[in-house]
């Protein structure tokens, strides 16, 4: 497979995952605010923080409020975490690789992009928001399902899977970092709502029901952090993602460096003990972990996307 094609498939998959993840975060937060009394909800900017879009947001908007944050995430096509931007980027990458994908892939991605372009501007307000987000999530899942059930297990599949898992792991760690920080920073007066907040976070990771079955209905920080990072059966846990990435990369030639990077991530995961970490320690851990993920991405890029003229 051509490096250029592999790279586009990888990014197509990352952006598709990002589209779904952003939709999930907004959707979960949307539920949360209706359950909390005024003043007890996290600030709107928490989503901007999770999605790492602060500089862009402040360039574009003056004040942090519901309208502006939703505008950014749902309808702005300039922020690389927004739904319109992500799906458009996914579409551009499929457009030039459609011949290695199942035939309906292009059609579905194209239709989703047309849908977002048409409906997103009217979905910023609370009234249409939910239906729009639900539709985006469901269509992303259709596309992933199509690829999972019909794509030949060759190079194309490997790069698509790696892209999706890496994006998923990246998003999960960022969400825990910002989410846990916000919850732990709150003063005691609102701690009655903590379970709701943790629940919303699990929902945003679509980990709600899996967590309840695996761990039980009680939610607290350590249990959530452990579940999201280390559960071996939940397919969106960081550990599960890293396992999948390691497997796929091992099937490709020239995998030495990228596998070493996976190993480094893996060792850090195992260092995450079940004992109590302070919030500062958790933050430092995730910060370092994110850097390791970035290095893994760089190693993949170097090994397969930048084939030099020998």
């Amino acid at each position, binding site marked *: *497979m*051509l490096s250029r094609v592999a790279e586009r498939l990888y990014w197509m998959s990352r952006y598709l995952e990002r589209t779904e993840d952003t939709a999930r975060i907004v959707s979960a937060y949307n539920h949360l605010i209706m359950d909390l009394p005024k003043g007890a909800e996290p600030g709107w900017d928490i989503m901007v923080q999770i999605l790492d879009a602060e500089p862009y947001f402040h360039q574009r908007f003056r004040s942090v409020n519901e309208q502006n944050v939703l505008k950014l995430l749902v309808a702005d096509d300039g922020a690389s975490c927004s739904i319109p931007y992500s799906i458009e980027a996914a579409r551009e990458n499929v457009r*030039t690789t459609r011949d290695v994908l199942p035939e309906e892939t292009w059609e579905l991605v194209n239709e989703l992009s047309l849908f977002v372009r048409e409906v997103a501007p009217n979905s910023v307000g609370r009234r249409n928001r939910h239906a729009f987000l639900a539709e985006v999530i469901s269509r992303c899942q259709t596309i992933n399902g199509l690829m999972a059930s019909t794509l030949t297990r060759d190079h194309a599949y490997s790069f698509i899977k790696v892209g999706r898992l890496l994006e998923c792991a990246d998003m999960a760690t960022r969400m825990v970092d910002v989410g846990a920080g916000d919850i732990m920073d709150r003063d005691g007066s609102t701690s009655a709502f903590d379970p709701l907040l943790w629940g919303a976070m699990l929902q945003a990771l679509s980990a709600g029901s899996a967590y309840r079955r695996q761990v039980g209905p009680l939610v607290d920080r350590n249990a959530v952090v452990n579940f999201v990072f280390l559960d071996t059966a939940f397919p969106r846990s960081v550990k599960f993602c890293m396992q999948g990435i390691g497997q796929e990369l091992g099937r490709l030639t020239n995998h030495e460096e990228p596998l070493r990077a996976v190993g480094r991530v893996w060792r850090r995961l195992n260092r995450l003990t079940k004992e109590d970490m302070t919030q500062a320690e958790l933050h430092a851990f995730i910060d370092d972990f994110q850097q390791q993920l970035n290095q893994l991405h760089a190693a993949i890029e170097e090994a397969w996307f930048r084939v030099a003229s020998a």
Partner: protein
Amino acid sequence: MEESWKTYRSEGFFDESMTPRGNPRAAANQAIKFLHSLAPDELASRRVAAELAIKEMGISFTVYTEGGNIDRAWPFDFIPRIITSREWSQLSLGLLQRMRALNCFIDDIYNEQKILADGIVPAEIVLDSNNYLEPCAGVKPAFGVWAHVCGSDIVRDHKGQFFVLEDNLRVPSGVSYMIENREITKRVLPELFENYSILPLDDYPLKLYQTLAALSPRARRRPNIVVLTPGIYNAAYFEHAYLAHGMGAELVEGSDLFVGEDDCVFMRSVDGPTRVDVIYRRINEDFMDPEAFREDSVVGVPGLIRSWKAGRVAIANAPGAGVADDKVIYAFVPDMIQYYLKEKPLVKNVPTYLCMREKDRDYVLSNLDKLVVKPANESGGYGIMVGPHSTKETHKKFARLIEKNPRNYIAQPTLSLSTAPTYVDGSIQPRHLDLRPFILQSKDSWVTPGGLTRVALQKGSLVVNSSQGGGSKDTWIVEGDA
């Protein structure tokens, strides 16, 4: 029943499906009878079905406009054009003969230049042409073949006789549309296929694969073949992807390839550099290699020509093949057939006046209102003047152009192009058409059974180019006589 069949007449032209009295010709009889039996709303619904099929199958082409590029749905008329296999076999032999002679010519020009020495073709029109590429001199491609894929434009006159209008030897396009047209017809008029045996078309990608594989410099069971495209913004990108997909070959852009120190061509793949054996290039030759030709080319591969000359990679069509794709050279093809093959041409050329010849030029300048004037070196129907349909102003403009640069212009009589029944504005009307069959040659040679029929959808118009509002039809070669 649609009434317009009753009054259908193609006055003064040869109609391929109907006789001058308005009866179906023998080969078209079954099809016309069936179409005749359809009520007007039924005909309209077939048209809608065709449009839907085109949209679903994603058949599109790109049109360049001032406002950017637009992907347009492929314009298609669902009434097939029917040609008998007897008429066809004669034409296809003529096309193979022509292709052989053209390849002898190109090989001769870049090597011995016998035809110039013998004075059959004037040396200056070949060697002074922009299409003659100095760096290609002395190269001996496999089987002496330079043009491996040729798309020849064929027209029929008022008697139904076939003529070659031009030979496209650089990067002829349209073959994917030819195949897709058949697929659309199968969906839209499935009933018609019951009573006809029609020569199938869909093995073209296989034949192309065999033609290209035979060129591989390495003996391998499955040589590495790539289709080189300028990218997604090219008008024919759909076709590039279609052919790559059909051959199971990689669709590459210039930046995916590089030439190594051993002069071999490699593609950048996830398994590391992978050697390429054959390049089916769909970019113009002057953009292929910034080292050899245009330095400003960003879609080419530096060193590609070096590799090709060293015999490390095969390129189809070979760089330099365009030397025979020139409307002035075209006029000499019948002479080439005599000279190289010692045969009589089986298909005729359209009579052609070369403005570089004083006698011809005088005739052209005093008969501009009767002639079609064409620049020697344009494609896509650009820069053409159809005398009888042009104003006095345009005649004057072309007279100036010709006098300024006579080598660059030829003229031909305005042909009475044949017509076929076409569904326009809810009724059946005669429209002019041409035909582009594709000829392949390397170790073996082959002609597509039929070709891409293009039809001028405007009443009376002779311009069939899709970039200028032309449409297309499925083309059937059927058993039986006319």
